[in-house]
């Protein structure tokens, strides 16, 4: 008996194939289970098998990462994802497939420019926008009537609607007032700003009540990063209660960037501000959008456009050397238009008309 067990002992300890055989059997069982559609798999059996595989390999299962760590990663990815979603710089894309197509047919005769051809190119993934020349070539404060154009020759989409609508800002103004753009003094691009003693107080005085948390957050972040930026004087009253839920800043080689997310639970507003060292360094931007339905903004001091989509809208405008990307969710189309068209710089301290 003793001899018999001794043989067994030797077998059990020295045969290298023993564990391999077990793993082979387990892998076979697992493959059988995984061959079934996911809904039909016996997850308890899968767990049983995989636990055994881990055990036979003498693996120690690592401690779970804390929820905080994962949440931080989720948050970082959301932020990165938003940026990628909102703005895909065309350094790569333009080299690959930014083919100017289709929109040449449309000329904004009012301006005498083929704006779309010059600045906004339809690419297979959305819009390609030449930000560096955006400000120069679009005339400011266009006095246009609504225009709708439908293409018949688009490669990537079937319909393009270009709409310029008279502003309906509700900054306590009548319609007659709102057709006049808010006048501000441009501080970027070389002019000398007139610095107010207390720009924040003045900005808050100029702004709608609902805009206060946004103005404060922008002021604080821009002051910390020595940036001269604009703030929105208008946020619709029904967006009251917006709170800063996420913010960060980055100092890049060519730019300083600020990121903000505000939310009141129902409405979310993301704002990205990129202050470039020079206009020449502004990259071309691609706005990925299946629906090429956009609106050319009306502002006395800056040019931009808004992409309308089903659930969210994105405004992109350039003020001096600074690019603003505004992304809203839960806001009406008119809201983002009114918000985006009413940015003024802190250091001019005024939104007087």
């Amino acid at each position, binding site marked *: 008996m*003793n001899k018999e*067990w*001794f043989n*067994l*002992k*030797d*077998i*059990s*300890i*020295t045969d*290298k194939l*023993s*564990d*391999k055989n*077990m*793993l*082979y*059997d*387990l*892998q076979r*069982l*697992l493959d059988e289970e995984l061959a079934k559609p*996911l*809904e039909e*798999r016996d*997850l308890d*059996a*899968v*767990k*049983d*098998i*995989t*636990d*055994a*595989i*881990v*055990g*036979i*390999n*003498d*693996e120690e*299962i*690592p401690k*779970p*990462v*804390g*929820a905080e760590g*994962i*949440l931080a*990663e*989720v948050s970082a*990815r*959301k932020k990165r994802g938003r940026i990628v979603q909102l703005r895909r710089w065309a350094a790569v894309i333009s080299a690959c497939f930014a083919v100017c197509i289709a929109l040449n047919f449309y000329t904004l005769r009012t301006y005498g420019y083929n704006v779309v051809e010059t600045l906004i190119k339809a690419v297979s993934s959305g819009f390609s926008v030449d930000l560096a020349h955006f400000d120069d070539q679009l005339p400011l404060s266009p006095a246009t009537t609504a225009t709708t154009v439908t293409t018949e020759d688009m490669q990537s989409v079937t319909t393009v609607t270009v709409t310029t609508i008279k502003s309906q800002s509700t900054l306590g103004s009548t319609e007659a007032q709102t057709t006049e753009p808010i006048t501000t003094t441009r501080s970027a691009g070389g002019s000398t700003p007139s610095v107010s003693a207390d720009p924040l107080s003045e900005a808050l005085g100029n702004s709608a009540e609902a805009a206060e948390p946004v103005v404060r957050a922008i002021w604080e972040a821009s002051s910390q990063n020595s940036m001269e930026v604009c703030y929105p004087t208008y946020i619709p009253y029904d967006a009251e209660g917006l709170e800063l839920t996420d913010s960060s800043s980055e100092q890049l080689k060519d730019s300083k960037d600020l990121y903000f997310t505000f939310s009141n639970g129902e409405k979310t507003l993301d704002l990205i501000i990129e202050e470039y060292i020079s206009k020449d360094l502004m990259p071309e931007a691609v706005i990925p959008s299946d629906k090429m339905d956009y609106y050319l903004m009306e502002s006395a001091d800056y040019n931009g456009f808004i992409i309308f989509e089903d659930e969210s809208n994105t405004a992109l405008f350039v003020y001096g050397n600074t690019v603003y990307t505004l992304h809203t969710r839960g806001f009406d189309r008119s809201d983002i238009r009114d918000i985006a068209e009413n940015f003024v710089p802190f250091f001019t301290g005024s939104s007087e008309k």
Partner: protein
Amino acid sequence: MIEPEHCTLIIEKYYNEIFSYCYAKLGYSHHSAEDCTQEVFVVFFSKHERLDETDNIRLWLYRAADNVIKAFVRKAPPPAVSLEDSPEAMNIADSGGFAENGDSPLDLLSSEERQLLELYYNSDYGQRNEAAKRLGLSLPALYRKIHKLKKKLRAAEK
């Protein structure tokens, strides 16, 4: 919508299970499995607002794991591992056997444990499966027991 606190509980509940699953599907690579497991829970957290308490979270995590593993393998295919050729992948200890000193470590085993070992070594796959059923065990559970017994013997040798 699942509350963040509930998410923490879900991580604690399913982390090991998902790690084991990833490990088994990724050629027994600890680090790859760890990376993928973390990724599964990052995906889970980033989408948990869209899930409901009544959703089959476990199934959802397995589906996410399948997707993460596919993406992982596409990006960085794990080196082809043969179970027979790679001791590293197998991570199997080789004790080299006992000294013939007359004192058998097998004496440490209970008779039930000895029978299990005997059963394992004296049967083929089908027989083991049947035997496991007779013992009220799954085959993986039987193998885990066998593995533990072998570890016990190896430890005794040292």
